[in-house]
């Protein structure tokens, strides 16, 4: 394990005058290896024992593909919705003073704290055809519970705090003078928000999106109640993994898990790259 990379013969760009770079980097690497890398490589190892053709067969199985589509698709849509409304919520919480602001501010964290199964059951009761919301939507021909729409709603619920809490501090930091500068240059309120303020929030919004998306892909507890779990329709990949496990089909379970892992890693990597590009520019 690398604990003293400075001695490893590579040349690091001296990151700052503050000492401790070698020690902290060594610690971080060791820690990440222990906590993340070893368990995950175990997973890959396990699925590798499957052999290519078997792996390929599982990966292209229609039920697997459909489940992955649903998982990533709904997570993407939910994260996109959260980006829009989460940013608005963060904006309102920072910019306006109204009675109950603190209560709402605290409420944002509830999806973090609530056991996800509780959230799932609550949402299912609400949106099932006989529930409050479900009963309202049913006459309009909108079915929420037991459809992908239900999954999206559950994931929106779960992902909201990720966006709000990443964007909020950045909104708080916005310099009042930047807005005033835009106004003196002739920009109206709308232009100031969309040309000046929101683009400045972009890096934080992207982070919030990544977090909400990643969380959505991996979410299990809240989704399985509302999804109805119909194969090919509303069955998410994590559930399919559990199903395979219950069938003692460990190879299939790990194969699906490995695919999820690879896809998630790829998407997060892309998001991170976008981010480091914008970061470099804005300084």
């Amino acid at each position, binding site marked *: 394990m690398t604990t003293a990379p400075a001695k490893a013969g590579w040349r690091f760009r001296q990151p700052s005058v503050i000492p401790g770079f070698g020690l902290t980097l060594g610690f971080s690497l060791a820690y990440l290896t222990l906590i993340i890398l070893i368990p995950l490589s175990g997973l890959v190892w396990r699925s590798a024992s499957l052999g290519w053709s078997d792996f390929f067969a599982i990966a292209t199985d229609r039920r697997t593909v459909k489940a992955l589509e649903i998982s990533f698709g709904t997570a993407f849509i939910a994260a996109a919705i959260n980006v829009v409304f989460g940013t608005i919520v963060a904006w309102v919480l920072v910019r306006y003073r109204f009675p109950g602001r603190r209560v709402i501010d605290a409420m944002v964290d509830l999806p973090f704290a609530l056991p996800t199964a509780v959230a799932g059951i609550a949402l299912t009761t609400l949106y099932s055809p006989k529930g409050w919301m479900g009963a309202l939507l049913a006459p309009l021909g909108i079915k929420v519970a037991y459809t992908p729409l239900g999954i999206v709603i559950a994931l929106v619920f779960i992902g909201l705090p990720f966006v709000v809490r990443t964007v909020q501090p950045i909104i708080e930091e916005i310099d009042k003078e930047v807005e005033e500068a835009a106004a*003196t240059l002739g920009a109206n309120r709308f232009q100031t928000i969309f040309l000046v303020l929101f683009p*400045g929030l972009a890096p934080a919004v992207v982070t919030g999106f990544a977090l909400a998306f990643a969380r959505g892909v991996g979410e299990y507890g809240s989704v399985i109640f509302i999804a109805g779990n119909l194969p090919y329709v509303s069955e998410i990949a994590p559930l399919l993994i559990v199903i395979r496990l219950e069938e003692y089909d460990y190879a299939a379970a790990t194969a699906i898990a490995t695919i999820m892992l690879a896809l998630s890693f790829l998407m997060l990597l892309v998001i991170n790259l976008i981010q480091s590009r914008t970061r470099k*520019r804005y*300084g």
Partner: protein
Amino acid sequence: MEVRVSNVRKEFDRFPALRDVSLDIRSGELIALLGPSGSGKTTLLRLIAGLERPTRGTIFFGDEDASNRTIQERNVGFVFQHYALFRHMTVADNIGFGLKVRPSAKRPTKAEIRRRASELLDLVQLSGLEKRYPAQLSGGQRQRVALARAMAIEPKVLLLDEPFGALDAQVRRELRRWLREIHDATGHTTIFVTHDQEEALELADRVVVMSQGRIEQIGTADEVYDTPNSPFVYGFIGESSSLPVKVEDGQVWISDRPIGLTAPELPDGEATLYFRPHDIELLDECNGCIAGTVAASRRVAGTRRVELEIGGGRERIEIELPVGHPAAQKSRVAFRPKRWKVFPKPVEG
């Protein structure tokens, strides 16, 4: 564009940041607002820009009451103390912003905006930096981008809040000269805030000296330096010495001796005499003078500063003597200020 500030008062939660300020600015003038921290300079600038509303009083642009106009309509260029550049936009986009947000009927084409931006970059001597982001510029460069951005909208009035505040002395002097040149070239009415008196006196057509939310004096550099109209201005601009005196029948007295100065317009009573340490004449014999014992003497550049004890050491003042003047070595020196002013002691309560 003429700007007229008429009896303006501005309160923040009851705290008066400006009390009854009136100021006439002629078209094309370069005006400096000079005053200590907290004297209301920024507040006055923000009121003119429309970023704050006066609690009382009116601001006129030409003959028109400016309060009828929104910030956007006032067409003022405002350069903020901390630049307030848009950090996700390139330098060129920053400068072009004011043109880009115009309603489509008045908006120049994209190519035209780009051309204007690079013209302005030439003017502020930053040609070739169009594609940089603000984070990739030095402080002085950011300052100049902020100025170019403000000038892009062809403002009627240009307002600058401590434009050179955060820069080192060398760059400051350069930018100062350069601002004067730009002002002369463009002819915008310009108001800038500073608390550097050298900057104000050197650069401005007229200097507005402020203190505690009031305008103390408005005048050219010569006027505010040579004929300060209040103890504050005497103390704030340049160096000054002051002595407590008494006025009786138009004569100025120190303890029990008249000092040969007359102030016929002043009422009898306690007062304070102000003069510049270098603006004095030395006297050989004293019939009507200020006399004191030399307490300390130090060399300051081309002159010698002498500290005198007056009236048995109760008061100390400074005067300036030529180096090598014999009086500096004498233990007793008599002098009379050439240019001076006596202000009656403010009535208590």
